[in-house]
């Protein structure tokens, strides 16, 4: 169980890394929201699952309750995170920010 | 206390603080002030002050940023410095 917890956490950290680097690398804020919205919630799911598993290694009622609470956090985040993403995106559209389009010619030059 | 974590978070707190007062857009300053209180919350939980961390989490994330945004909404976003 500990091993699977470690694997989950490492996977989660990997996704978190992807999210952060994505936020830095993508060209405009619309596309930055893709890694921010998806990879972060996925990373959270993975790390949280890992930590819930780690909590469950001594199998008792308080541990189960704690693990359930951790999963409750994940559920909440999976409801709220897309909403936050959407809210930011909507704000951007209303603020009149044009989306970035691939400058194909420039890349070739 | 976990000092290796603590020292990173402390430096991030300072970065956030400096950024929050040097941004020219007041809405951005308010949002960064939110980030500042996230960091503070982390710092306090690292130091073991759970109740303080809880308070800071609820205040910083829930209320004070909203107050700032509401005030900026009702006044202006412009700032010269």
């Amino acid at each position, binding site marked *: 169980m500990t091993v699977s917890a470690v694997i989950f956490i490492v996977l989660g950290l990997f996704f978190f890394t992807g999210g952060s680097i994505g936020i830095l690398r993508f060209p405009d804020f619309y596309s930055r929201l893709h890694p921010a919205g998806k990879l972060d919630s996925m990373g959270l799911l993975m790390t949280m699952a890992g930590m819930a598993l780690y909590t469950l290694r001594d199998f008792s009622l308080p541990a189960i309750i704690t693990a359930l609470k951790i999963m409750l956090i994940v559920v909440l985040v999976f409801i709220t995170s897309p909403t936050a993403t959407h809210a930011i995106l909507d704000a951007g559209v209303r603020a009149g920010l044009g989306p970035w389009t691939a400058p194909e010619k420039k890349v070739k030059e | 206390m976990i000092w290796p974590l603590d020292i990173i978070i402390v430096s991030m707190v300072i970065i956030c603080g400096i950024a929050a007062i040097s941004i020219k857009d007041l809405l951005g300053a308010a949002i960064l002030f939110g980030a500042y209180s996230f960091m503070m919350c982390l710092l306090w939980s690292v130091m073991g002050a*759970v109740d303080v961390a809880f308070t800071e989490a*609820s205040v910083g994330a829930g*209320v004070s940023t*909203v107050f700032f945004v509401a*005030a900026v909404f009702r006044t202006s976003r412009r700032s010269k410095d």
Partner: protein
Amino acid sequence: MRTLGLIAAFCLGGLLFFISFDFPSWGDALSPASRHVSPYYIEHSLEDTSVPNIVTAVLADYRGFDTLFETAVIFSAGLACFFLVRVSERQVPAARFYRHLATGITFRIEKGGRLPEGTGEFERIDSLWVPYDVIIGMTCRLVVPFIQLFALYVIAHGHHSPGGGFQGGVIFGAAIILFAISTNLRRTLKRMSERSSALLSSLGVLIYAGTGLLCLFMGAGFLNYRALAAILGVDQVAARSDGILIVESGVGIAVAAVMVWIYYNLSSAGKQDEGL
């Protein structure tokens, strides 16, 4: 003047920096701060009050008087915001916008015009109107009751886990603020009017101060919850624990109401008709 102030500030900083070398080092278990009074709290709070969370025990019982005034500070902040920015309702409103529900036509009613309130056919809309956002609206519908429940949980379980009246109150207030953000201010005011938020905020502090005065009239000192044992019918240690719960719920009510009250005033610039 400004530069003088800055120079003074940096002198202060330098002074603080040099004196910091005389401090006991960070996290030192043998520093005077953790040897004199705090061991008493750590070692006796459980037997004195039967509350495992020492912070709650100290907050609401040993130093309960501080907390009474902390709540009073929050209350006076709410009152101060109201006092400063609230604009009288009797002023004739500027142009208002209404939408006819059946047709969706939007009307602009100038200052002094007849307002179609109360007919049921029209819906008042903000002058800076945004359409109903399904995603945000649904999320808030799902999440708001949960946050409220969580806030009550935090208040009720302040004895055993971190949290307590203040944190729970802020979360509860934030839930109502979230509702206001996701719909609009008028709909929130229908559910929790300004008057009720004011009354609740003063009621919350009143619960706290009233508990203290009750203890005083029962013959023990101010805020000595031991006196509650006779009323609640429990022994004195449990009376302290129950007294803490009562006081914390008072704090929670006050804080939640004050947060909402301040939000109402700040977001509508005191007019209380259109919010963020």
